[in-house]
């Protein structure tokens, strides 16, 4: 193993706005950041880090069914395993290290109390199919979570089981489809704004619908005229994200709902950005029929390097009967779990997954809600929106906001007009930001804005950290305008690796280690 202290160009120093020399945000010494081989290149084929009892194996009744060839899995002792994965961990950026302003992803603080609660044996060590009389506390927790979600959204029902946002979208659209089919209505089209997240059209297609795009106005909202023109007897649903992916509140949301309902369609709201309005606006007051809530965004269950998430869907009275099994009800004998599509659940559209959803995420989300309370959650939305508008205000002199007029919600969107004639792209800026010690903003999303840079600071950043981030970006803007192209094109210089060749990876995929 070698340390990665190879000859890298040092970051050019520039004067910051105070006229002081900008110090590199990172220590120069890299001697403790280790290169780390794959376990397949270092593990022993006989080695194990787990002491197990002797097995007196009589597999006579499995004759002919057992493995005859080795699997090819290396093992490591416990100290080697820990060192391997801790070394890998040090190659990751994380919320706990610095601001992680990945727009639309809501990278906010993950309270450790929530981790502790999810690990209580009464939650972590219960089986999904043990008798319901032995899991009354778990069902009570699901019931409480449902109550909070319904109250915060002003909606009468919630399906808890979807396992992520996109799974929630599917749940909502399948409920809509079932409701339409129940009235003998075979509508085939779902309208989706051009600015929508990719999961929206993908989900609509998987739910069996044709996707038709709705145009966007110059100020970043749904074009009501285009919506009205495309609504008709074949439209099953309109899927609108609100606040939308440009970080803007759909001012005409009540009109969108009215037009949608007048055409006999349902209004699906993508609630990915609910964190901007939680406690201040109830989607139920906006005419929404169904909306998923990403517990890993608004309610801060950890993103975990790409999941697990959770995507409960709140539903209107009209859609509630079509929610998928299972769900929790209460009666004189305590809580019950409705697992079959019979009786009261006869209209349920089906089942989304094997069990009752993401219990571990429910515990974390409820702990987050109880901690904040109604007052704190309202403050969450206010601080998230305040932070984004502050970023927008601080950067607007140097960067070009995509929608300069009026406030944004929880995220500030810039285009790449400010990079014109510099030869520097949004990607280059993102990579250069890594050298400044920050995770880049979301780039090239939404697709409707050229070279989009979507910055979501969240409510859990201090003003000091937000200022540090803005100053880093302003330094980069100054460097870009001064023609310091090398600082961008070669970036990142200070990450564990230099820029990675993603094209080569896709051209000749190597998806596993081979000897």
């Amino acid at each position, binding site marked *: 193993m070698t340390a990665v202290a190879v000859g890298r160009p040092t970051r050019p120093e520039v004067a910051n706005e105070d006229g002081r020399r900008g110090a590199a945000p990172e220590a120069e010494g890299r001697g403790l950041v280790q290169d780390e081989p794959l376990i397949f290149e270092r593990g022993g084929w006989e080695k194990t880090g787990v002491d197990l009892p002797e097995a007196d194996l009589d597999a006579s009744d499995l004759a002919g069914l057992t493995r005859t060839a080795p699997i090819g899995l290396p093992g490591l002792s416990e100290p080697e395993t820990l060192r391997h994965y801790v070394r890998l961990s040090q190659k990751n950026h994380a919320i706990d290290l610095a601001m992680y302003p990945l727009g639309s*992803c809501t990278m906010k*603080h993950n309270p450790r*109390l929530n981790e502790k609660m999810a*690990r209580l044996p009464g939650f972590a060590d219960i089986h999904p199919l043990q008798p319901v009389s032995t899991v009354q506390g778990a069902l009570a927790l699901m019931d409480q979570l449902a109550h909070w979600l319904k109250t915060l959204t002003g909606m009468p029902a919630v399906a808890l089981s979807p396992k992520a946002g996109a799974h929630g979208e599917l749940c909502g659209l399948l409920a809509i489809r079932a409701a339409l089919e129940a009235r003998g209505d075979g509508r085939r089209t779902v309208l989706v704004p051009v600015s929508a997240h990719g999961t929206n059209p993908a989900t609509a297609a998987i739910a069996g619908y044709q996707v038709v795009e709705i145009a966007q106005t110059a100020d970043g909202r749904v074009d009501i005229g285009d919506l009205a023109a495309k609504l008709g007897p074949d439209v099953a649903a309109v899927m609108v994200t609100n606040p939308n992916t440009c970080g803007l509140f759909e001012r005409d949301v009540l009109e969108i709902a009215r037009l949608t309902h007048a055409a006999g369609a349902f209004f699906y709201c993508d609630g990915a950005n609910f964190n901007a309005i939680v406690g201040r606006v109830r989607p139920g007051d906006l005419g929404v029929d169904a909306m998923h809530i990403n517990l890993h965004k608004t309610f801060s269950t950890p993103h975990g390097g*790409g999941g697990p998430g959770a995507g409960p869907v709140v539903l209107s009275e009209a859609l509630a009967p079509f929610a998928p099994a299972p769900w929790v009800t209460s009666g004189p004998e305590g809580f019950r779990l409705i697992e079959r599509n019979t009786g009261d659940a006869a209209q349920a559209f089906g089942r989304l997954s094997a069990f009752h959803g993401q219990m571990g995420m429910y515990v974390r989300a409820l702990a987050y809600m109880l901690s904040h309370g109604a007052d704190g959650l309202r403050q969450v939305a206010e601080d998230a929106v305040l932070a984004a508008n502050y970023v927008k205000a601080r950067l607007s002199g140097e960067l070009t906001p995509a929608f300069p007029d009026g406030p944004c919600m929880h995220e500030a969107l810039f285009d790449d007009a400010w990079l014109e004639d510099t030869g520097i792209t949004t990607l280059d800026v993102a990579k250069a930001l890594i050298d400044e010690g920050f995770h880049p903003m979301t780039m090239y999303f939404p697709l409707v804005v050229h070279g989009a840079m979507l910055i979501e600071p969240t409510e859990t950043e201090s003003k000091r950290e937000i200022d540090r981030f803005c100053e880093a970006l302003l330094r980069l803007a100054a460097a870009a305008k001064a023609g310091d192209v090398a600082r961008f094109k070669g970036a990142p210089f200070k990450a564990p690796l230099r820029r990675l060749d993603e094209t080569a990876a896709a051209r000749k995929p190597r998806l596993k280690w081979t000897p």
Partner: protein
Amino acid sequence: MRYLPLTAADRAEMLAVIGAPDIDALFADVPPAARLAGPVDLPRHAGELEVERALSRLAARNRSSGAGPSFCGAGAYRHHVPASVDHIIQRSEFLTSYTPYQPEIAQGTLQALFEFQTQVAALTGLQVANASLYDGSTACAEAVMMAARVTRRTKAVLSGGLHPHYAEAAWTLAHTAGVRVERLAAAVDAERAVTGAIDADTACVVVQTPNVFGTVTDVSAIAEAAHASGALLVVVTTEAVSYGLLKSPGEMGADIAVAEGQSIGNALSFGGPYVGLFACREAHVRQMPGRLCGETADAEGKRGFVLTLSTREQHIRREKATSNICTNSGLCALAFTVHMTLLGEAGLRRLAEVNHGRARMLRDALAAVPGVEVLTPRFFNELAMRLDKPAAAVVEALAARDIIAGVPVSRLDPAAGMDDVLLVCATETTMQDDIAAFAEALREELAR
């Protein structure tokens, strides 16, 4: 509020920079009728101690599996997870990062995913594995959809040994997309009956081994029959530890292998979050759902890893994507990989042998109870048995005696006509005392 760093002074200063008179001005786009004047009708904020007390009270109302004899399997399994696994997944750098969109600062997550994919491919005996799906049941549903894309056919045959909830989840996803789902009758040895249902419209045959009744089957003959009529074979496994002892799906001719990976590294957690394993042949990789991690090099020629083949995915392809999945099960996949690295091949094999041994011990003890007939001919760590009383009632009665006796088939599939069948499971966490207590209590209940 302890999670919100902004002070009143910060807020005032920030509003001044923005040029807004107050916070309400930033919500000006919200229609006035929809603006809430004050907090909704829910409790106010609470301190850490209060929240901990409230949730601990709820937790205390659940009978945890470790608190007494517990024999539930049927898709979720209680195994011992080494303490170091939980330590690693609680590292801030893994816990509080996201999907590795910026690979230069996410090599930890990416390399772990690359290791995960390699492990899953090896375990399933297939060429490529993805970076995980939500759980085994959704992976199974995605496999049906993928088979329909690959074969351009519209019928899926599901074995009567497939976990009923998996069958329902697969039906829910597939029938909306126009794929006809033919679910065969439930039977302990159902896999033997599958070949007869394959025809020229069949996109895939979905079998499970060990199946929901615990039966282990060599599905090689089904693979041959499927392939002879141009269909794919999807092999489902809900107990990933069984890979340590039994022939892999790939070895038996599977085209797609899906599994619930919870058993390795992940807690029962009342059904989620879990981790879906998904592996297939290299030829079909561009039809695969979910994220894929691939190897590449950086500008200095050093090896690194990135998310790749994203032209299959929703953020590029939108309505033409292979699936709508965005977030999957990253941290659960990491737990799987760390636990698997600790086990290694030697440990996994030993773990599987111990599981099988405990299940034999359970079988022997229960088979000796009057009124019990063991139904599963060949099992790994769970089996079905017929009682001379309705299984659900027996389970309730034993729960009152603090024994979680297993899963009645009637709970999973009331239509199966197997109300007297109980599914029981033993793992390395099942002790001889537990088994003796179960057998004794069952003897008394059945004699009552």
